[in-house]
């Protein structure tokens, strides 16, 4: 809806004297603000709108969003599965949500029991021994996990061990995390199917090695078959293995990072365990470690003594705190709800069907699109352009898909595949949806040959058409005030 009445900023709807709040009368004497002996605010420039204005505003802008409840979201590496509604109800139960982080533990036994049980579930799925629920996101989990590795080497007296090895197919957060923890990055080329090249690995492993970060299946959606050999090389050289859990949805109940030789890992509960992405967060990134690293985990750890649950801060060798309080609890409750809803068998079924859906798409799409590596995939696969229209860019294909009512796949990642288009269907999509998606991609491939301009100028049916990113970066209009300044 491009009606100008609806297509405005909240600030443009503001009118002096309108308000949407309601508060009772103050029932004690009003404080004399001058008695605070501090500079006071002269003006507070916030919008003034009525409750009706406010609701219409947000309902109207919301309709300009694509969402998983609206349609298929095949973003590779993001696991956009259905977000079950019961999870939302449970996270809003007052007895589970209206809790202050500094309440006495005696008033928190239900919540601590829930979190403790969640830790046990996560340990079982991953094959790890001890979990910490504190990290707020996947990248935050990576950061906390690498801190655990660094602390381990510190305590072992291995202060020279500063090198973290990454394959060049890794997620962008991996190298950024390495930098943030003060490690040095050693990037090694992958072999042709995105796996660790064993010769390249052996060539860079030395006494300065701290560890290796890996996701398995890798970012091409292929299972790293020689993972045990990789693990042996790293362990023999005195390093530790970090597992990036972004791709856990491929292997639940089929294989476990802990059994593959990984020492530390994180989950992305907003991927694997169906918690909503919320337009970019909040998520949660719990980490798990093998027993020998447990004492380095962030404090507090959630533990049980007899029938009492408690927060244990007594870990003097811990890396410390990575976040105030205990993690993104409200999200963890949703993950708990999901896992309990699925059960162990249901989780395996989810991974099985995620993998089947991906292979089902891959087998048909490889006839029209280039498939750089034609092997059985796990939960996702990567295409590389249209066979009959090699000059048409992946960006144009992605934008054209929006016209067909599908969200675009992840594009231009992993970096090792030119014109990459990474497709992850998840287990919650029906055959009919998958068929419709493939029909659309095949129609686009045809359009690419017959009328490439149609793709280059796409999308045509979305709330706005292609957005000028260069203008945004040059003009740097980052607030309403900037916008008014620009207009004047």
């Amino acid at each position, binding site marked *: 809806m491009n009606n100008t009445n609806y297509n405005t*900023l909240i600030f443009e709807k503001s009118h002096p004297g309108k308000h*949407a709040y309601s*508060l009772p009368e103050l*029932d*004690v004497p009003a*404080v004399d*603000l001058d008695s*605070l002996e*501090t500079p006071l605010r002269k003006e507070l*420039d916030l919008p003034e709108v009525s409750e009706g204005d*406010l609701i219409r505003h947000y309902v109207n802008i*919301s309709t300009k*969003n694509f969402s998983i*409840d609206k349609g298929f979201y095949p973003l590779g590496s993001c696991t956009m599965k259905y977000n079950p509604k*019961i999870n939302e109800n449970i996270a809003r139960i007052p007895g*589970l949500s*209206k809790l202050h*982080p500094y309440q006495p533990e005696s008033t928190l036994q239900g*919540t601590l029991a829930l979190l403790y049980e969640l830790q046990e579930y996560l340990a079982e799925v991953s094959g790890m021994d001890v979990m910490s629920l504190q990290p*707020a996101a*996947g*990248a*935050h989990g990576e950061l906390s996990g690498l801190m655990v590795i660094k602390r381990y080497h510190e305590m072992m007296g291995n202060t020279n061990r500063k090198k973290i090895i990454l394959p060049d197919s890794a997620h*962008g957060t991996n190298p*950024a995390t390495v*930098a943030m*923890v003060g490690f040095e990055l050693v990037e090694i080329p992958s072999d042709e199917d995105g796996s660790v090249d064993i010769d390249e690995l052996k060539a860079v492993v030395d006494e300065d090695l701290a560890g290796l970060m890996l996701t398995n299946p890798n970012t091409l959606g*292929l299972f790293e078959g020689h993972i045990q050999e990789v693990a042996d090389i790293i362990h023999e050289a005195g390093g530790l293995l970090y597992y990036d859990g972004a791709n856990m949805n491929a292997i639940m*109940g089929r294989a476990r990072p802990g059994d593959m030789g990984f020492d530390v890992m994180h989950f992305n509960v907003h991927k694997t365990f*169906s918690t909503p*992405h*919320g*337009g970019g*967060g*909040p998520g949660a990134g719990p980490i798990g470690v093998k027993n020998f690293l447990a004492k380095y985990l962030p404090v507090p750890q959630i533990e049980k003594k007899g029938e009492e649950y408690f927060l244990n801060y007594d870990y003097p060798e811990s890396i410390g*705190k990575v976040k*105030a*309080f205990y993690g993104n609890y*409200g999200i963890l409750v949703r993950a708990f709800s999901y896992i*309990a809803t*699925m059960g*162990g068998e*249901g989780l395996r079924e989810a991974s099985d*069907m995620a993998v*089947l859906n991906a292979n089902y798409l891959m*087998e048909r799409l490889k006839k029209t699109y280039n498939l750089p590596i034609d*092997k059985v995939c796990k939960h996702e696969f990567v295409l590389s352009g249209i066979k009959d229209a090699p000059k048409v860019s992946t960006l144009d294909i992605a934008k054209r898909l929006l016209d067909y009512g599908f*969200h675009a796949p992840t594009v231009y990642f992993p970096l090792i595949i030119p014109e990459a288009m990474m497709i992850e269907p998840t287990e919650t999509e029906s055959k009919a949806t998958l068929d419709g998606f493939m029909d659309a991609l095949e129609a686009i491939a045809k359009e690419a040959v017959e009328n490439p301009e149609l793709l280059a100028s796409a999308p045509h049916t*979305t*709330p*706005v*058409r*292609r957005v*000028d*990113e260069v203008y945004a*970066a040059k*003009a*740097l*209009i*980052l607030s309403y005030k900037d916008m008014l300044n620009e207009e004047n």
Partner: protein
Amino acid sequence: MHRYIPNNGALLDEMLKDIGISSMDELFRDIPQDLQFKGNLDIPGALSEMELLEKTTKLAELNKSSDQLVNFLGAGVYDHFVPLVIDHIISRSEFYTSYTPYQAEVSQGTLQAIFEYQSLITQLTGMEVSNASMYDGSNAAIEAAILSLNAKRKSDTVLISEGVHPEVIEVIKTYLHFRQTNVKLVPLTAEGKTDLAKAEELMGDGVASIMVQNPNFFGVIEDVGAVADFAKSNKIMSIDYVDPISLGILEAPGNQGVDVVVGDGQSLGNGLNFGGPYLGIMAMRKKDVRKIPGRVVGLSKDVDGNRAFVLTLQAREQHIRRFKATSNICSNQSLNMLVASIYLNTMGKEGLREVAVQSASKAAYLKKALLDTGLFEEVYSGKTFKEFTLAYKGDLDALLKGLEEEGFLGGVNLERFGRKGQLLIAVTEKRTKAQMDAYVDAVRRLS
């Protein structure tokens, strides 16, 4: 098959046939035999909706929530009233089940919401730019500290006031330990304000910034202008960790010369949720915008010239810059950011001021009533906003236990932060005179 998995029975057989395999196991034949997990994961379930509701309701009954106990706990997490419109708006699938707005053409809702949030935060703080939010206040604080270290060559130290939340200090110490960087703590004066004379003694060439919290952890209102002046005269950055509610009445830090404003946005309409998810606020001067971590949305236009919003300055971020990114963060707390925006728009200029005035007035009322009992002494003489620290003359543990039995969460016992006998009490607009009078009565009876 589980009810969330639509393809089963004949559909499943058809799909297997289409790709030319006979069983699911074949799809996992690339996993080496000895790595294949046999049997079922030892996780109970699958629970039906009724069973799961019963299980979680029973767990909830083992807790005592703020519906049951009158809450005087604060220390960074405040029991402010959450306007009811918020849950209606954030329950729209279009907001909570969408992904990061990378495809701008189908994400204008989230992008506009972020642009408006950035605008609201700059107006509230008096700063020039805001990012799209971070994990929480503690992580915004560490990102600001890192930003200051990156901005000054050969720096290796940050000064942090002892008035900053102890858990925030803990997080900063954790991160900076791994970067071989020093954290020097600046003590407080008898008033409870950051001692800038002591800060002067701690100065050296390697210092990159000074961080204070206002109102500080103990409730005392800091002299933010003096801190900013101190930073300017020493050519370091000043970082102010704020409670956004306080900015309903206190001067905006941007008008007092502060370089970076951070804080936790929990109090802006986010429920207690046992510590998270909340959002981290981060705002700064426009000259530093290329150093800002996290997402930023800019105004642009589409090919038809229509107003459109888009993620911008992405060249700073991890998915482009990798090892050289400004941070490894690859999300924002988008839904909590939306909550904060709805809250600020609901309250508006009058409402936010009213919440701040009511909280301050009620806190002043309770503080006086408690001091009048003769059972407490002020720990610091400085002026306070909605929270204050008192030293109790009796057995604090016993008092708090007794208060809990009478239905009160009586305050945060600061013994957990090494301050035996000290009680941190927060009062929001939700507390009534009757509740506070009953609390004081209970304190008298239990003492």
